[in-house]
């Protein structure tokens, strides 16, 4: 089967700093891929290039066989590649539910529904329900129902993370890129949050790529690991193999557990 996402020979430099150097990876459909590496190794640059925030200096990214290298984030998102953020990107003056409704509203708008002349409550594409019901359903899945009328600004860190990811689920992603989904979350909460996320994602049937520093989380949830160092992928294998790799132990795991 052809990969859902195929990055080939991506290069990106910021002045003298090389953030990506011949990065290539083909991601299989419905797989769960973990990205590891120290800060500045190029993980987020990889995500930024796939989601269109950064344009690679050279190389190509194909999604379902289609070249998406030059597309802006909104077009890539419309195709079904969505991301969450290391620092949650929320609409802080709106309530949790309004955050969801804004995301679902964009889905409606892009589908040409819910416009000025459409009355009633149209179904959000992919959710088979009006926006209010779809919002409540997603919030329930992420355990956010009881917080729905709170301002996003006042949510505790873990909840903010979950809402950030729940917002991406509104777009019905086929590929979901999670940038450090458990950073800023207490050690006890980490597995619970990851479990919740993976269950929600599995229910939707999406391919997942996630950045993670905790190797226990990586081994537990990822089927394949890409280890980044200095803008390159230095290992690409199942977690047990990658974590045993000498280079990975020296440059990634070693430094993390030092």
């Amino acid at each position, binding site marked *: 089967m052809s990969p859902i996402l195929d990055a080939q020979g991506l290069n990106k430099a910021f002045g003298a700093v090389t953030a990506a150097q011949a990065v290539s990876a083909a991601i299989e459909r419905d797989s769960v891929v973990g990205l590891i590496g120290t800060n500045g190794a190029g993980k987020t640059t990889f995500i930024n290039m796939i*989601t269109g925030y950064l344009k690679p200096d050279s190389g190509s990214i194909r999604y379902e066989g289609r070249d998406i290298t030059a597309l*802006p*984030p*909104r*077009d890539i*998102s*419309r195709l079904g590649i*969505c*991301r969450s953020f290391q620092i949650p*990107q*929320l*609409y*802080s*003056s*709106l309530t949790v539910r309004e955050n969801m*409704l*804004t*995301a679902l*509203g*964009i*889905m*409606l*708008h*892009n589908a040409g529904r*819910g*416009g*000025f002349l459409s009355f009633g409550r149209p179904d959000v594409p992919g959710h088979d329900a009006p926006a*209010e019901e779809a919002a409540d359903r997603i919030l329930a899945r992420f355990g956010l129902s009881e917080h729905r009328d709170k301002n996003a600004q006042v949510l505790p860190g873990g909840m903010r993370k979950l809402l950030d990811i729940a*917002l991406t689920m*509104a*777009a019905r992603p086929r590929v979901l890129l999670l940038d450090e989904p458990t950073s800023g979350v207490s050690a006890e909460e980490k597995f619970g949050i990851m479990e919740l996320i993976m269950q929600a994602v599995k229910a939707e049937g999406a391919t997942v790529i996630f950045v993670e520093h905790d190797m226990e989380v990586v081994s537990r949830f990822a089927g394949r690991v890409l280890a980044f160092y200095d803008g390159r992928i230095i290992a690409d294998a199942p977690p047990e193999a990658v974590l045993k790799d000498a280079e990975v132990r020296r440059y990634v795991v070693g430094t993390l557990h030092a």
Partner: protein
Amino acid sequence: MRPDRTPATLVAILAALALGGLVLPQWLLFILTIACAQGLVVLGLSLLLRAGLVSFGQALFYCIGAYTAGALSRAFGVSDLLAQMLAGTAAAAAVAFVLGFLLARYRGIFFGLLSLALSMIFYGLIVKSETLGSTDGFNLAKATLLGVRPDEAWVRYAVLLAAACLTLLAALLTHRFLRTPLGRLGPAIKDNEIRVEYMGASVRYAIHVNYVIAAALAGAGGALAATTVGHIDPEMAYWTTSGEFVFIAILAGSGSVIAPFLGALIFGAIHTTAYDLSPNTWQMSMGVALLAAIVFLPDGLWSLFTRLRAAGAGPK
């Protein structure tokens, strides 16, 4: 969900104006009509404010609306209020559609100053134009309503009633727009533009649409003001006029399409009283009023209503 009471409230206000207008003095009818005109401009301004954009040049579209009405009256002898307001709306919207391609790229102080610059360019153009009356401007023929010229004693009342009906329509349409997914994007854009783009929406497009609607409303307001006052001059595009609109917007606060009209009415009342009491220092009184509004009601007059409603609902 709370039921939407705005349309009913707007209709009730219209009914109150229609009845009250029969007994109110002529000068007050005039102030109410001008409040409709200014309220329309501020309603547009508030759309931009929701998205975090402050236009210091909304007088551009106000003036375009006014001069379009003036041109219709002078060149074609069209003095019908409805035709003038429609033409003013269309002209302002058309100009905003073109300018929007430039303006939608800017945020913050750049958006504010660019909008100011454009209004001052327009001001400079009409000041230099002999055909448009230069700095003196020109007078408009008395308004007709659907081809009928109201009796002299009733003309203020008739213009107010017609203006209030058209204003009601504009407010209802704007209210409707604010409940569409595109209309709801304003606060999200203000909060987190990058997230909006990452969710698959074009921020530039959304701002462009808001900009054109804001201009259309300002154009309608300008045409109405022109007919009501019976005279137009380049001051309508001057930056102090834009400043007044921002003043009213801050005084009014956001949260309802009714707020701008309330703000404009209070503004008119303060302005008239201040001018009446002290013709030489009225600007000072206005300054004090604005200061008081910012200090005591940072979210504007409308926040009084939302607070009352919250208190009425009781603790949950």
